[in-house]
């Protein structure tokens, strides 16, 4: 890519990443949530890879990291849901943390935690698919 793209992308990618985190953390207050925020975070990484080319990054290490991250995040969602069997009415996916004042950032019990882990899982999954396609193209063109 050209010099303009390479100069502007690092400035924009950080802002897009922060916006994704905002969407995930405020998922129970404003439109958005785990799926939307995770896709935006994956978009920030994809923008960096598109601008700087695949040679600038160690892609093999990245794809291992992103697939491990998504696996652990999905496991954490299941663990959070299983922990509900220890409290209260003992139902899978029960909301066992205190609900708090509706409308504040720390409210709605476990829903923000689910949002965070689903967001990490979605970002990891989309990034893994993209990196797998890029690595396949790199290796088959050799």
């Amino acid at each position, binding site marked *: 890519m050209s010099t303009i793209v390479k100069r502007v992308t690092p400035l924009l990618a950080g802002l897009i990443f922060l916006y994704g985190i905002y*969407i995930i953390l405020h*998922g*129970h*207050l*404003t*439109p*958005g*949530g*785990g*799926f*939307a925020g995770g*896709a*935006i975070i*994956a*978009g920030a990484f*994809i923008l960096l890879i*598109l601008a700087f080319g695949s040679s600038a990054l160690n892609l093999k290490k990245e*794809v291992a990291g992103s*697939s491990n991250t*998504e*696996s652990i995040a*999905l496991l954490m*969602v*299941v663990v959070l*849901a299983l922990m509900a069997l220890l409290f209260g009415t003992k139902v899978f*996916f029960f*909301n066992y943390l205190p*609900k*708090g004042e*509706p*409308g504040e950032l720390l*409210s*709605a*019990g*476990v*829903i923000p935690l*689910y*949002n965070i882990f*689903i967001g990490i*899982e*979605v970002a*990891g*999954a*989309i990034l*893994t*698919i*993209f990196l*797998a*396609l890029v*690595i*396949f*193209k790199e*290796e*088959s063109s050799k």
Partner: protein
Amino acid sequence: MELTISIILGFMIIGAIYALHAKDLLSAVMAMGIVGYGLVICFLLLKAPDLAIVQIVVETITLVIMVAVVLDSTREELAITLDRRAILQMIAGFIVFAGLFYFFILAIEHLDPLGAHTLRMSETYVNGAVELTGSVNLVTGVLFDFRAYDTLGEAVILYTAALGVLTLLRIKGKK
């Protein structure tokens, strides 16, 4: 508002038809972009910003991947030859289309107009979600509390898709 949505839907249909008939595959991909981004505006007009955010990001990422595929393979469409098999397939397609359209007309007679009537179950969700879940955003409240199994299933689908891509595109194991 219905007029605006109708105009946008008309543009989307034109874009889809152009994508089918374009000689240049790159312009066909761009025409598919009209369909996706038109859907974003429709979601915003129908008051579904949650869906609009997801749609605009996913549409952009898919467009990037499709453009990469087109630039990497070929930009010209394959020529269609009309042999006996193609004609049989076209006849079968028309029969299936006619059947589906007949049942569509049967089904649409019993539907209410858009947004005129809410189901009994969703009324309970709409009225009691804030007290029951503590989440001000109704969509998140439904997704992660009332319908948490759905969300788990969706996350597992994405996980399986990533797993499938990693399995299909491996190079070292094939040798």
